[in-house]
């Protein structure tokens, strides 16, 4: 038997039935394209979450109050309002936890920022100068505030791009200007480098940063902190740092063994893992759905091949009468099925790449194509062709020439 000739025969048979072959391919094309696109979306969203979280400072550790104890009457307090964390906690961590190299208290308040006739609702974040390092923020123009200014409750602030755009719509230089937050006048001494939106769609540039003392005393009038931010000496050391901090704070807060913490410590790495495992789950789900469509495409091939064998019974009879062997017929139909599924697979791969590209550019995501997804879906569909084409092909090869020729 001459396999090259059989391939030639299969090619011609496909050519003779272009439309039908294309419709058969369609199932495979859609299946493969869907698998590739879904995997690409999944991978891209994972990477996107990762990179945006680690751009917030991958060594960051945040400490929040967490009061899990039921208050009398069964009321639980929302964590941000609990008076638990204090400056003494910050000082102790700074002094005793050697795996932490930067630390900043955190207090925040929402309010209206006003400049002349323009005003803008935003958030003021009260922190120490170290906060910029912890959050991987940088200053585009101007300078950071100093420890001296922190001690003096200085009315100075750093602003994000969104705030600048809204308070200075005419493009004036904001440095040195005085704005009001609520009714506290504050002088802008620096503008932050824009960071854009984070994964969750929050505008990271819609912010005012000021010394925590200023926010605590002049705006909130409180002595408690809402959060503490720290950065571990390295990402690997984050978990050990968390353990040290936990031990220290339990002592400081006089929590007895067996009692729950009244605070919680989270590393950025934990957050990243949590987020990306959610997105892996989504990816798996989407890919499974796409995979099902690939199987349905395969069944489509079997269906069409089956019909085609019946419909082409006379052709098979003729081929046998002029010398085709059973194996020639078997291979012809197998190769037809394979050519259709492989061609469909190739078109599907191209379509999948194009649609991944479109999705990523619409969502402003980085384009991530996993080579695995291409290779797997391609082989799956070649296999599909053989698997689903085999039975009809076998049926064709076993036909009796005379009966096949007589078939109406």
């Amino acid at each position, binding site marked *: 038997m001459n396999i090259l000739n059989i391939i030639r*025969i299969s090619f011609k048979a496909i050519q003779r039935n272009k439309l039908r072959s294309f419709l058969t391919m369609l199932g495979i094309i859609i299946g493969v394209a869907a698998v590739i696109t879904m995997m690409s979306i999944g991978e891209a969203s994972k990477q996107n979450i990762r990179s945006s979280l680690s751009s917030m400072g991958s060594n960051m550790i945040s400490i929040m109050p967490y009061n899990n104890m039921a208050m009398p009457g069964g009321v639980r307090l929302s964590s941000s309002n609990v008076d638990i964390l204090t400056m003494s906690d910050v000082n102790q961590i700074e002094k005793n936890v050697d795996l932490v190299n930067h630390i900043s208290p955190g207090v925040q308040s929402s309010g209206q920022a006003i400049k002349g006739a323009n005003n803008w609702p935003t958030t003021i974040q009260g922190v120490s100068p170290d906060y910029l390092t912890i959050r991987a923020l940088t200053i585009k123009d101007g300078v950071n505030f100093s420890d001296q200014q922190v001690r003096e409750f200085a009315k100075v602030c750093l602003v994000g791009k969104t705030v600048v755009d809204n308070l200075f719509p005419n493009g004036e230089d904001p440095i040195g200007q005085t704005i009001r937050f609520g009714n506290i006048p504050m002088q802008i001494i620096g503008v932050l480098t824009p960071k854009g939106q984070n994964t969750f769609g929050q505008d990271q540039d819609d912010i005012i940063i000021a010394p925590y003392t200023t926010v605590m005393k002049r705006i909130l009038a409180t002595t408690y902190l809402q959060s503490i931010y720290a950065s571990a000496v390295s990402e690997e050391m984050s978990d050990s740092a968390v353990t040290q901090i936990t031990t220290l704070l339990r002592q400081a807060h006089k929590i007895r063994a067996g009692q729950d913490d009244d605070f919680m410590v989270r590393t950025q790495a934990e957050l990243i893992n949590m987020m990306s495992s959610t997105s892996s789950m989504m990816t798996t789900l989407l890919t499974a759905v796409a995979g099902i469509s690939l199987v349905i495409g395969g069944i489509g091939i079997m269906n069409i091949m089956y019909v085609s064998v019946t419909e082409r019974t006379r052709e098979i009879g003729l081929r046998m*009468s002029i010398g085709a062997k059973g194996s020639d017929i078997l291979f012809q139909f197998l190769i037809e099925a394979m050519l259709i599924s492989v061609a469909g697979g190739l078109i599907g791969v191209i379509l999948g790449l194009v649609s991944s590209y479109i999705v990523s550019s619409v969502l402003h995501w980085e384009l991530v194509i996993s080579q695995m997804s291409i290779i797997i879906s391609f082989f799956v569909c070649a296999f599909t062709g053989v698997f689903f084409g085999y039975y009809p092909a076998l049926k064709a090869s076993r036909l009796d020439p005379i009966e096949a020729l007589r078939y109406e």
Partner: protein
Amino acid sequence: MDDTILEIKELRRDFIMGDQVVHALKGVSFTVSKGEFITIMGSSGSGKSTMLNILGCLDKPTNGDYLLDKVAVKTLSRNQLAELRNRKIGFVFQAYNLLPRTTALENVELPLLYNPTYNASQRRERAMHALEQVRLAERYDHTPNQLSGGQQQRVAIARALVNDPVMILADEATGNLDTRTSYEIMTLVQDLNQKEGKTIVFVTHEPDIASFSSRTVMLRDGRVQKDSVNENVRSAKESLDALPVTDDY
């Protein structure tokens, strides 16, 4: 020297239809020598097609022997039979059986695709030559639906010729054609027989067609009724020329 090309002895073929047995052939014997042109005649249902299918190795007898070129066909495997059909036999059907949407040239090439001894250019060359023999060379790129019935049958004959078989079997090859076209086909068949020395077994209903052959076997109800040599073979070419020229109306 013995120049017998096919020999059948006491050939029987039964078809089992449910609980009924149809005896299509009830013991047929005859021999055909190389270069003979024989027609097989008989009424409908007398077993002509059944016998020709066995001669063409498309079907196997229930009983009896069939020697093709001294080879007992009974002993051959399915694949060997396929090879035999491909190399030694050219089959022409009443219904032409051309592949649709496939050019005349590709249809004629088809048997060669199952014969690995030819490469692409040899295939083309031989197919072209076969088309020339049936005088259809200039229509090589026409598909069957662009050809008349007679032309389609000529393509089918070219396909039967292309592998240079020793024997051509035709089952009512002129059954669907008018007299003039039938004579054209018979001219071709006579040429193949006389000039190329091909053995021809031609099944037909029409005594007219039988008169072009050198011998006629009459079948009746699955048996040979008469096996007679035709003393004065008519020339198909002359009969064709003698036909009144009817203008198209």
